[in-house]
């Protein structure tokens, strides 16, 4: 039996390495379509399920199952899953806000994503294995950035899930004015992934500087610059802000406060350089804060009545016009009152969709059932605020269970940061900064539900906890 568990341990480790590579880098091609949603079951779901089945067998055979179930972090995970299931039942049969199959599939996806933490925390048994996984992640960052640049300059294809049509696995090419997505579902996903990498690199690089290991300093420095460049190219404003505050925290935790000044200079340079990101920041200021923009007024006479989306459109048929330079710069679906400028329009809609459609939808769901919410999948695919999403989907009880998970995880990483020295200390400092940046991002984007970024987030946490545990044991042994 010990031999079998050793074999399973090796199998699980290499399965973990494969998932670290596969999940971020394999594009979102659908495998099995789900009725009633444009979310699909994908190849990685099958791989993850198989891995988890082997892991369950390993936990039983190795006898680790007892300690696994006794661990209060794992118990908090089970409490979160239990409340999610009760909420799904309530949503399906009490509030009638979800269909049973969609509710179960969404719940399964959440379980699949967050289980990466206990999975990696339990399969990483040696420092070497943790380093291999972290090294693999650094290669993934490089490949994701390389592919993103390829989409901009070398006509590499892209697969996105930002709308129902693209979610069918349609291969398309990023237009010159489009935002790069690399192998991710959208530019926001890629940006969050880069933020995670940047915050950790900002801390860990100082360990290698201290050790004068110039190879790793060079490699991480190169990755940092590359990630920063690609982050600017995604033009994701909130992720840029999250990266900034995350790196500031990482520098503080690494004891390198004077580098914050350098960060300010770099951020100022990034914003001074003409880019979509700079334009969007300027638009944010003028449109969202000053509420000032050049409005669109329709010249066509369609009656001036209400535009009611559930009613058929009547009235004179509009004649098509030949595109001119002027019309090409205006969005074809613009309505009166919206900004004429294409960047202003994007920024305007980005915010208005949140405050007028997505957030009220989640608040209504919460009001309908404050205890349990209206079930997973009831508030649509995007709410763009993870707190509201959680309150709407699983209510106060589910949100509190999730808070306990996050709280216990942060508590453990802080303990590692305080008790350890060397690489593990720098890594845990970077990971704390990553969590902070991730939470900042979650105020405007559903980062915890995005399968690629969510999976990587929990993976990194799992690896860090495993490394902390191993180092703690080594300290005791000494």
């Amino acid at each position: 039996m010990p031999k079998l568990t050793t074999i399973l341990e090796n199998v699980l480790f290499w399965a973990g390495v494969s998932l670290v590579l596969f999940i971020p880098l394999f594009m979102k091609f659908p495998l099995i379509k789900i009725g009633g949603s444009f979310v699909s079951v994908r190849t990685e779901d099958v791989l993850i399920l198989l891995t988890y089945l082997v892991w369950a067998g390993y936990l039983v055979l190795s006898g680790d199952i007892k300690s696994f179930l006794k661990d209060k972090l794992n118990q908090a995970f089970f409490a979160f899953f239990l409340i999610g299931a009760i909420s799904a039942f309530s949503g399906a049969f009490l509030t009638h806000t979800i269909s049973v199959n969609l509710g179960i599939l969404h719940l399964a996806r959440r379980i699949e994503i967050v289980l990466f933490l206990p999975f990696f925390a339990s399969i990483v048994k040696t420092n070497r294995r943790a380093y291999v996984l972290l090294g693999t992640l650094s290669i993934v960052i490089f490949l994701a950035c390389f592919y993103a640049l390829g989409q901009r300059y070398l006509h590499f294809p892209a697969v996105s899930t930002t709308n129902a049509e693209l979610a069918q696995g349609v291969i398309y090419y990023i237009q010159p004015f489009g935002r790069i997505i690399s192998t991710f579902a959208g530019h926001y996903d890629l940006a969050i992934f880069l933020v995670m990498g940047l915050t950790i690199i900002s801390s860990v690089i100082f360990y290698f500087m201290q050790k004068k290991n110039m190879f790793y300093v060079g490699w991480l420095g190169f990755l940092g610059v590359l990630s920063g460049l690609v982050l600017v190219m995604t033009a994701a404003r909130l992720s840029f802000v999250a990266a900034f505050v995350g790196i500031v925290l990482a520098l503080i935790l690494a004891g390198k406060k004077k580098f914050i000044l350098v960060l300010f200079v770099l951020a100022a340079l990034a914003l001074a350089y003409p880019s979509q990101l700079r334009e969007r920041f300027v638009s944010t200021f003028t449109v969202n804060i000053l509420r000032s923009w050049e409005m669109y007024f329709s010249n066509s006479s369609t009656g001036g009545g209400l535009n009611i989306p559930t009613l058929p459109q009547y009235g004179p048929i509009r004649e098509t016009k030949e595109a001119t330079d002027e019309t090409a710069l205006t969005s074809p679906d613009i309505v009166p009152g919206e900004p004429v400028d294409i960047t202003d329009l994007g920024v305007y809609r980005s915010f208005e969709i949140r405050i007028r459609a997505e957030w009220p939808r989640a608040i209504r769901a919460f009001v309908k059932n404050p205890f349990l919410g209206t079930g997973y999948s009831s508030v649509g695919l995007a709410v763009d605020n993870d707190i509201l999403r959680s309150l709407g989907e699983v209510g106060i009880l589910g949100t509190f269970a999730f808070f306990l998970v996050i709280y216990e995880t942060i508590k453990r990483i802080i303990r590692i940061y305080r008790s350890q020295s060397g690489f593990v200390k720098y890594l845990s400092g970077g990971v704390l900064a990553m969590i902070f940046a991730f939470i900042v991002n979650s105020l405007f984007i559903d980062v915890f539900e995005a399968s690629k970024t969510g999976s990587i987030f929990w993976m990194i946490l799992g690896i860090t906890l495993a490394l902390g545990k191993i180092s703690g044991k080594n300290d005791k042994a000494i």
Partner: protein
Amino acid sequence: MAKRAFKTVLIILSFLLLVYMFLPGPDSITDFPALPDSIKSSLEGDTIQVPNVSAYFSNNYRDFVIPYYYDSYKEGTIVPFGPLRLNYPPEFAFAAIKDQTHSTYLEEFVYPLKNSLFINGLEPVEKDGTPRYVGGGRFEMDGRFIDTKVTLRFYPSTLPVRVAVWLGINLSVIVLFIMSKRILSK
């Protein structure tokens, strides 16, 4: 002492929640009255094809319809307070009422953890007869011209489901209580 008091308060609250969830109320759409001076729609989709749906053509506008059904919903149950009122964008009528439901307003009255009533209104003309949108005009029913159509959809819940959800809430609270003691304590 404080611990015991806290537990007692939780048990009392749980019992009150159970009583609230058990209080009788409307069971189906037939428990809601028709709008005054209205013609009940017999159009396909407004009768038996979709459960718990009924629709009325009348000259009653939103300012009358909403308080009317608020009062009738409140009177139909012995809960000592009225339902919560939620406002929705009209396009949600496709999901909440039935597919292809035309709408100019959509509201929901909810008794959380019990049941809810959606009220969808279609008002093609203003009270003075002005079309509210291009092509908007009065309905013609039985030789009469009528201003508005109101469609109701009731979402009931059965007693066993409510009991199951109540048990689920209690189980969740107990689990969270134990977990928070383990995690939040120093």
